[in-house]
């Protein structure tokens, strides 16, 4: 532990002095005002550009209650939609599920609050948003907060200021059949899941595509989330559950990442990006190192299994304690930094040797009960550090810290400098990519 702490101190010293991202503060549940009487069955409110009663989605929202169905016909809507409060529990808003790009919300030129999010749901439970294409909003494309249950299905999120599809302080949700790209933080994000005692409501992320974002999927302090049958490629990092002090309830725990394709996450956005390049990263870092498939940056009880992880030139799968919290005086935060009972099993690395990762596995050996089982490794550097660090399952009561891994990771972080994009690539171990239908590897964005 002393070595770990001294490493944390060293990392803090070498890392850029950029402050950590500010704690996310979102408005409390809003007063819904006078609730109009709703029929028991609910109504169908149709929105379209011409010939409908409602010309904007906001106008329909104003008249709707949670029993209603709002159908939005194809067209481009320049507005931000806010769904605030219990009055909208159970509301369904449907564009074109077969072709979401036909029902477009564009935030370009939209002023004020409307330009922040295409859809913003706050304190309304069980809202469904299906079949929309949103782009150019200053904050997020689709954003749900303080909700018990949500369905975000068949959505396209392009070039929003922070996140593409985002749920915060919520539980029991679904993100499915959607794609997110060109977002300057993560394509998909579930953050600050409240801990649930006893019974839990799990959230599912199913059949989504996330590419050309800083992060494919971010999960700050997220819980009870299963990410399955999805693709994360051409991002800076593919999937990153992480423990941060900037949000409540660290660490991330009881998550499952299974049956996903996580590949080619070598997008060096510092060399050029379709979005505003972030000025700082998490935990006092300049950024997450680029070129990682899946990174657990502090996690407990997470299962990573049956994924196909290939062509990530720094590391395929990495797991490291949250070193910034590990040095904190608060024992709760120190505990949140610790890796416990994480299981990495039956993943296939390197696409049968045809598309290798720089290194398949990297683990600092910290924590307890962490284990590896049945992974197929193909990289010339299958493990960072000693193989003995990667304990078989079931995990040992105490894992064994490997100082060489910590030393090397510290070197990567110390070297990276956003003003010199090439520094993010200097520890990459490049290998040829196998061709893949309909997708090309992107390391540098060009218009």
């Amino acid at each position: 532990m002393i070595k770990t702490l001294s490493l944390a101190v060293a990392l803090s010293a070498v890392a850029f002095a950029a402050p950590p991202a500010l704690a996310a503060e979102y408005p409390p549940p809003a007063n819904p005002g006078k609730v109009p009487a709703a029929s028991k069955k609910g109504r169908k409110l149709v929105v379209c550009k011409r010939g409908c009663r409602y010309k904007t989605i906001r106008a329909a929202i104003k008249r709707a209650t949670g029993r209603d169905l709002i159908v939005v016909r194809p067209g481009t809507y320049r507005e931000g939609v806010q769904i605030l409060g219990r009055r909208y529990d159970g509301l369904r808003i449907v564009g074109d599920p077969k072709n979401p790009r036909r029902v477009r919300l564009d935030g370009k030129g939209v002023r004020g609050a409307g330009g922040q999010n295409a859809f913003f749901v706050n304190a309304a439970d069980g809202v469904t948003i299906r079949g929309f294409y949103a782009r150019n909003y200053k904050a997020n494309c689709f954003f749900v907060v303080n909700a018990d249950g949500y369905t975000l299905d068949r959505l396209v999120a392009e070039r929003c200021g922070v996140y593409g599809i985002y749920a915060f302080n919520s539980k029991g949700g679904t993100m499915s059949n959607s794609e997110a790209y060109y977002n300057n933080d993560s394509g998909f994000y579930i953050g600050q899941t409240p801990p649930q005692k006893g019974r839990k409501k799990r959230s599912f992320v199913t059949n989504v595509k996330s590419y050309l974002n800083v992060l494919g999927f971010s999960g700050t302090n997220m819980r009870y989330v299963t990410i399955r049958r999805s693709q994360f490629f051409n991002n800076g990092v593919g999937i990153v559950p992480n423990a941060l002090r900037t949000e409540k309830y660290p660490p991330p725990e009881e998550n499952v990442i299974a049956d996903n394709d996580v590949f080619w996450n070598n997008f060096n956005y510092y060399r050029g990006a379709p979005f505003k390049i972030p000025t700082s990263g998490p935990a006092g870092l300049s950024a997450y190192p680029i070129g990682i498939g899946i990174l657990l940056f502090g996690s407990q009880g997470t299962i990573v299994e049956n994924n196909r992880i290939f062509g990530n030139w720094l590391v395929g799968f990495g797991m490291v304690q949250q070193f910034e919290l590990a040095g904190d005086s608060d024992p709760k935060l120190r505990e949140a930094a610790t890796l416990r009972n994480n299981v990495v099993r039956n993943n296939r690395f390197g696409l049968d040797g045809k598309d290798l990762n720089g290194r398949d596995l990297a683990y600092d050996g910290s924590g307890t009960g962490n284990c590896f089982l049945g992974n197929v490794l193909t990289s010339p550097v299958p493990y960072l550090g000693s193989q003995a660090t990667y304990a078989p399952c079931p995990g040992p009561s105490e894992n064994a810290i490997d100082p060489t891994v910590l030393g090397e990771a510290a070197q990567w972080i110390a070297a990276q400098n956003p003003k010199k994009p090439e520094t993010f690539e200097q520890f990459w171990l490049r290998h040829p990519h196998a061709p893949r239908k309909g997708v090309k590897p992107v390391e540098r964005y060009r218009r």
Partner: protein
Amino acid sequence: MGVRDRFSARLGRRDFLAATGGAFFVCALGERQFTVRTARDVQRVDAAAASLRRPASARRDRVDSLSFATPAPAPGGRRREYWLVARPVRWQVTPRGYDEWHARRVPRVTFRALAYQAWSAGFAHPLGPPRIPGPTLEAEVGDVIVVHFRNGAERLRQALTVHPHGVRYNPEYDGAYLGEFTRAGGFVAPGEEFTYVWEATPDSVGVWPYHDHGPNHTLNTFRGLFGAIVVRERGAARPDREYALFLHNFPPQITGADTVLHCINGRAFAGNTPTLRARVGERVAIHVIGMDSNFHTFHIHGHRWRDSAGAFVDCPTVGPNETITAAFTEDNPGRWLYHCHVFSHQDAGMAGWYLVDPR
């Protein structure tokens, strides 16, 4: 749709149902009790179950305030994790539409059942179709069985649970609705999940049922929410052939058929029920569990085995949620019938084949 044979036709539907013990059944639900005679009664019970709110936990006695540690495996034991979803399934009771024993056509009966389905960790993908009975949960003495249970029957809008027999558990993991004394695992609402942790102790060795014990447990167990738990001594070898057979019925009130269907593992009539197989010389264990309100007698033609007292038997009685095991070394090749020997049960579907190959 219904099963029309001369027996039932002669008796008439009401008499037939009465004769087979399927005329009606009683469901106690919250403070109400329902006598279920018709499909409409089933709807009433379901509606009442859907309207039942999660009870606030009462603390009338100091035992109600006790808190319990989550059990861990004994030294050398393992965590055996299962991910189960309770969900509706279109279930075929007689998929072949034929009774091979009596060489007669029988109606194809399909209805909306409930079943436990095994999933991979985190409910990432199903490990097979939903089945009746649900997945068999296995452990050895010293292990803990960890069941991550998800109520995936959203449209049913009722709380469901998993309640085990045979293993050791504290009240937190009882999986039973107990009115105002219900703990978290006794009321798992649609979309929720709960993790049960049960211990396989030395006195758990054997085969036991698990089933729904939520507020509407009688009806939902009758619909198919049950499965088996097998606990062995540490390091004990499995039999060469091992089967778990549930003897139960589907009442017409839930299937829409004309008569009660007496089933084995959700299917009725030989050719639809499980066909068991073994070879001469193999060690065979057939675990038989009663899962309805009747007593059954389990008979395998051409075979005898010892009961728990050491006496030879070939037609032991098995009651509701009771298990008997027919364990023997196979020595008699051929096609054999196995069935419940309550006559009205065997003729209404509770029979199947046991095929023994020579060496």
